[in-house]
């Protein structure tokens, strides 16, 4: 079973190379405002997270994933479904 405690630090590792603004990365960091990711970068980042967990994060789910914590919750939920 994956838990948010293990997923969150791994997500932060994956997101670090995308953090060009040097923002503090934690569960509350937002992708749009804090990280200022454009749509192409979001696609690359999503693909990396999907590969890490061998899963799909559908495009229609993205608007609900505002923070790194939201993604961690989604990964745990989908993988344990």
């Amino acid at each position, binding site marked *: 079973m994956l838990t948010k405690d293990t997923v969150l630090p791994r997500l932060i590792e994956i997101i670090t190379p995308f953090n060009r603004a040097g923002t503090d990365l934690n569960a509350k960091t937002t992708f749009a405002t804090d990280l200022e990711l454009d749509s192409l970068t979001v696609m690359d980042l999503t693909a990396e997270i999907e590969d890490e967990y061998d*899963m799909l994060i559908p495009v229609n789910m993205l608007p609900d994933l505002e923070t790194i914590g939201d993604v961690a919750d989604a990964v745990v939920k989908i993988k344990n479904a």
Partner: protein
Amino acid sequence: MPDLFDKFQPLIDQYEGLMASGLRDPFHLQMDEILSPTRAVVNGREIILVGTYNYMGMTFDPDVIEAGQKALAEFGAGTTGSRVLNGTFQGHAECEAALRDFYDMEHAMVFSTGYQANLGLMSAIAGRGDYIVLDADSHASIYDGCAMGNADIVRFKHNDVADLEKRLKRIPDGAGVLVVLEGVYSMVGDIAPLKEMVAVAKAAGAMIAVDEAHAMGFFGEHGRGVFEQAGVEDDVDFVVGTFSKSVGTVGGFIVSNHPKFEVLRFVARPYVYTASLPPAVVACSAASIRKLKYAHNKRAHLWEASRHLHKSLREAGFTLGTETAESAIIAVKMPDQETSAKMWTALIEEGVYVNMVPPQATPGLHLLRCSLCADHTSAQVEEIIARFKRAAATAGLPLKA
């Protein structure tokens, strides 16, 4: 209260900046006269049209015009109704028959635009718990159709067969899946490896839709599209198309051999809740489709013109979107937005119209897009090349040695 337009301010600023630089406005050009599929008058001057998607030059075909005039006189200016109410006339049925014959398929459904055909298919065919798997570079109408429906939407990297396969493997067992592909991608005019992609999608048990908007009329033995050329006709469940390019009118369609296809007429909302095409439009379209079937000379000429323009622009040092002419779209890459606007203006001054692709449509790319027409003469193509070279000098666009 905030002004609801505030969110558009960056775009308004960008546009006003472009206009303040004294360049022409690429997005509000007015064609005062259309002399032929390849010539128009703008501001009292004749220009060559090299960005119309009028691939087969059918807009002024005498048989097409005659069919339209007859229908206009006999059936009136409009239908004032939905396809499922009072808006299906003899011409709509005839148009669907022409499509069934052209594609050699059992079913054809004519929509008011290609945009709506994609909206209708994507939003209706896949429901909650189903998946639509689409190329990341898919046309806006495919994305919008997905957004209208309730399926889960999964993207794969543009034209990447391995990425498509990887994503299909991750879909939970038991979910319905539609894979959406395009024959020709309209931004740079590259074609999809349909043989490999269709094989991978079939192996995963998915249904397959191919949008052949930019390929109808000149790919494959019968001009059906890239899916015909790739030899995958029997494995494709739906072909989506438009009348607004090779057919030379306006409208959209889906053709299919699926035995239950006709139910889409009740469930595709963009088919039901809008008025049908005017009688003249369906009559012109049917006449055009019937002629496209036999337009072998036009097809050959279009390919020759496309290859020649591609080769010559490349040799002149322009940076193009593809290594070779894969379709009738030749995209010229610009280094930045400003040079792109300058080059576009210089081309208009020289008397050449191409599309300046808005940067929102191709993040990270600045493109001037040419599309050829079967009616472009060899002399016109030479003229286009010469004008491109002069425009590059005027616009200060560096060319490769």
